[in-house]
């Protein structure tokens, strides 16, 4: 009963990653962890793209994935930059302590 890993498996994995990432963004308090959860979502996207790319037999998806990786890095870099500025003025990285503006 050993089946080869098919595209569906990758899609289930990616959907699971999307769900974990979403829960992470909504439930965690530490901003660094939230940023990591967002990275998880983007990695779910990458798995989807690569799986489809392999399934369909052309490279468009891989090219898209490269761009997604780059965008993820840009977002993470800007996010960390803003986080440092925030930490300098507020001395906290907990999302629920950042409450100067009403949520």
């Amino acid at each position, binding site marked *: 009963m050993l089946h080869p890993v098919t595209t569906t498996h990758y899609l289930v994995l990616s959907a699971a990653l999307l769900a974990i990432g979403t829960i992470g963004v909504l439930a965690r308090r530490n901003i660094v962890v939230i940023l990591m959860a967002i990275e998880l979502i*983007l990695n779910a996207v990458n798995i*989807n793209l690569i799986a489809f790319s392999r399934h369909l037999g052309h490279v468009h998806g891989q090219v898209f994935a490269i761009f997604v990786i780059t965008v993820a890095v840009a977002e993470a870099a800007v996010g960390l930059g803003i986080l440092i500025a*925030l930490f300098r003025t507020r001395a906290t990285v907990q999302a629920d302590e950042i409450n100067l503006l009403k949520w």
Partner: protein
Amino acid sequence: MSEFYTSVDHFALVPALMLALFGCAVLLFDFFVFPAPRQRKWLILFLALGIGFAALGLVRQYMFLSSEGLAEFTAFRGALTIDGFAIFFNGIFLAASLIVALVSYRYLEIEGEHHGEYYGLILLANCGMYFLATGTDLVTLFVGLELMAVCFYIMVGFLRFDKRSNEAAIKYLLLGAFSSGFLAYGFSVMYGLAGSTRLGDITAALAARSAWDPLVFLALATTAVGLFFKVSVVPFHMWAPDAYEGAPTTVTAYLSVASKAASFAFLVRIFLGPLISAREVWQPLLAAVAVATLTVGNLAAVTQTNVKRLLAYSSISHAGYVLLGLVAGNPTGIKGIAVYLLVYTFMNLGAFLVLVALRRRDILGEELEDLSGLMHKSPVHAVLMLIFLLSLAGIPPTAGFIAKYYIFWALIQAREYVLAAIAAAYVAVAIYYYFRIVRSMFVSEAADREPLASSFGLRLALGVTGLLTVAIGVYPEPWLALAQNSVLLR
């Protein structure tokens, strides 16, 4: 030129090239040509030059389309499509960028954060918007969206030593990046369904499936969540009031008009492109979202005492009106969206520019009390603000009336009488909270004697936005023709 970069490709890319080139140049000129802080305002001249070249490129594209009688032309094997829609929206973005840059130097000097990068970021964000309006490929659209969004994250947090600015930036970034993730997930599913990243191929592939196919629904749902975040409609609007309140006022102005217009251009392209075959699914969904947006935006605005936050909620409600144009879905509705976003750009920019003028060295100038007695202190600003608020409320003869008129007309044509009635009812609520500001300006005593901030750029920008808000309302024909063009050519 090579097979990968033909002269047509170049022709389609010129405006974006100019914006990117001048954006990079501004970053370098900040060190090498204008190193002294006093010289930084010359960077605005440079920025204006870049926007001018980009506008020239747009005009040439427009002339080419009309002289050849073409509806559109594509470049980069279908990754970019230049049509009336793209040119119209790009015109809006360029105008907004120029106006915002003009008013920024005085404001940033007062805030003590006048850096050259600001102008580079405006140009690069505008470059991203160009790809949002012209792109017809998932990768192009995604990268364009992120280019715009990342520039905005930085600009929202531009006051590095201001707690509110930092906080607004981190909230905007977290929710923005989260929504981009969802959007990218939707795109990846679309790519899987179609085996191509071109919008045209995806439209065909999705049309071959049922609208209720689970994968189509997954793509629709995740893409819609991402897009709804970007245009800040209920229930994905939470970031907007915080980001708008905490950001530097000039950035708030830019964010509320240019980012919103670009995101709507993107949303219209996706919903009337790849997702058109799932219309029976998204039309009721969009109607519900639009009504919820009108409700939350208008009712929350009533209780606000911070004018920036009030205008943030009002801009959420305006997004609801624009969505209604898409719900109607007929040519009048699309024309209505174009007209609405054009008018909204000038009237909303104008309203925020008055707040920019109210920011003085020791006065934040964004509470309702800060506006009190403005009529006695500076009648010109008070009257301009009155015009912008009348227009935002949609009262003739201002431009806002024309904008709302087309949305209502489109709804009636589409026999959506209930939606039209709900939308009309919320105009009354809007009038109530806009007139709280008016009453404060004209009836109350002045809060302080400090004269308003002023600069050549600020006066020019206020004049232009005020003039256009009245002019489009009094003599709308040429603007309507432009908007009509953007629908017909589609």
